[in-house]
């Protein structure tokens, strides 16, 4: 096989493989701290649901729910440690909330860990995370 031929073809059908900008671990830690302060989240109660194998990072279904009464939960925050900007969304509950659960669709630049943190009204925090794989798309526009 001619190496040049391969490169020509590989370069045409599959877009250039680029390394997306990625927040540094310090930036991620800082983003989390800016939201929940210095509280150390505990594992348990919170359940983050994201597919572990992502077909397209442009729209990834995500849901997060916590085993608690609505009045016990102040907010659920979601972070992407491998995106250019770590924050995805903060979802605060109120007196008319029926269940401490949210679902949305997010963008993921690359394979990474997605983190959810629930902030309780008593000041404690719970976290859950999912390591996922974003497959590389071919034949892009």
């Amino acid at each position, binding site marked *: 096989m001619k190496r040049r031929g391969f490169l020509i073809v590989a370069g045409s059908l599959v877009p250039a493989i680029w390394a997306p900008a990625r927040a540094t671990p310090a930036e991620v830690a800082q983003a989390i701290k800016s939201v929940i302060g210095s509280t150390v989240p505990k594992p348990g109660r919170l359940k983050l649901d994201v597919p572990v194998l992502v077909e397209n990072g442009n729209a990834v279904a995500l*849901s997060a729910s916590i085993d608690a009464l609505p009045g016990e939960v102040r907010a659920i925050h979601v972070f992407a440690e491998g995106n250019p900007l770590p924050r*995805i*969304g903060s*979802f605060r509950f*109120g007196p008319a909330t029926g269940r401490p659960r949210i679902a*949305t*669709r*997010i*963008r993921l630049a690359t394979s990474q860990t997605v983190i959810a943190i629930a902030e309780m009204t008593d000041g404690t925090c719970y976290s859950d995370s999912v390591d996922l794989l974003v497959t590389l798309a071919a034949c892009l526009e």
Partner: protein
Amino acid sequence: MVRVLINVPKKAHRGEVIEIKVLISHPMESGQRRNEMGQPIPRDIIHSFRCTYNNQVVLEAELFPAVAANPFLSFFAVAEDTGTIVFAFTDDHGTEQVERAAIVIE
């Protein structure tokens, strides 16, 4: 004005937990992309969303560029009284849009 699809039950029983689903037609331009000339495309997202039920907060969301285009949100309210569920969201131009859905308690 952007298009919004709101999914709320028209009727509910008192105390029932109801799911609310919202789809908003919006590009959620992340500010991370560049155009064909290599220039950055400015960020243009819906950054805040608020849902109230008879003036009581159901959900207040702060959204970032990692929320997918045509944002989708699903969350739960507790149905108490016949009234109005109000959805208000604001984009990067500072434009606020308000949508309403009626609910009847049987």
